[in-house]
């Protein structure tokens, strides 16, 4: 019981820390998530992103800036909390608790980079094809796309973890 309470406290602390870091950080401080995302978006879309100090990653040929608000930290926080909650029943010792927190943090980071890459690549495509959703203006399309991609990805991640968890349970039995 004490271990589970400690995990809840640690989860809240990590969420608070990430949120705090995100609100205080400049684009330069978020290199740990913006750099891999920009590289992956470049691979997917063929655009060349260069780092602009204080702004983020800019693709001159597409006039597209990956800035602080594109970092996907909120998705990472949501995914981290969700993963800890989904696998909370797997805590039976201090080691398993530490493993759960570490694995959830790494998985949420990797998921954030991958999902954000998909979201930015799609945003670039939508920006280049404004006729795809003529009923909405550019800001609405960007917002709608963000909600659908982030929420849809959370659902997929949850389903994946549930399946792996069930498989893990049946193997250990």
């Amino acid at each position, binding site marked *: 019981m004490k271990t589970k309470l400690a995990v809840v406290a640690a989860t809240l602390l990590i969420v608070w820390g990430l*949120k705090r870091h995100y*609100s205080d950080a400049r684009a330069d401080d978020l290199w740990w998530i913006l750099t891999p995302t920009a590289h992956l978006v470049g691979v997917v879309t063929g655009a060349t992103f260069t780092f602009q100090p204080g702004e983020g990653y800019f693709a001159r040929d597409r006039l597209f800036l990956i800035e602080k608000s594109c970092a996907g930290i*909120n*998705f990472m*926080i*949501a*995914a981290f*909390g*969700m993963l800890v*909650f*989904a696998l909370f029943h797997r805590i039976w010792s201090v080691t398993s608790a530490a493993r759960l927190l570490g694995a959830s943090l790494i998985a949420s980071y990797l998921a954030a980079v991958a999902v954000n890459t998909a979201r930015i690549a799609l945003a670039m495509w939508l920006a280049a094809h404004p006729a795809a959703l003529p009923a909405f203006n550019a800001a609405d399309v960007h*917002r*709608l796309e963000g*909600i*659908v991609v*982030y*929420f*849809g990805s*959370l*659902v997929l*991640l*949850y389903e994946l973890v549930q399946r792996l968890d069930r498989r893990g349970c049946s193997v250990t039995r």
Partner: protein
Amino acid sequence: MNVFRVFRRTAVPLASYYAVTLALPLANGAAESGPAFVEHALAVLIVPPVVIVFACAVHTIRRAIWGTVWDLGT
């Protein structure tokens, strides 16, 4: 596909999404930013359930069509 069952199944991702996009900004005083936050909150509240219902509808239609094609084939 039962919509209520899907809502129950997606409750955890939905709750975690709402917590980060609505509860945390509200706790940080985002409501003071007025109409901008209300607009954001409305979109965030409405779009995910619409996506779920839409996905259920597509799944049901796809199964109905696929089932018909399957029946014709046998």
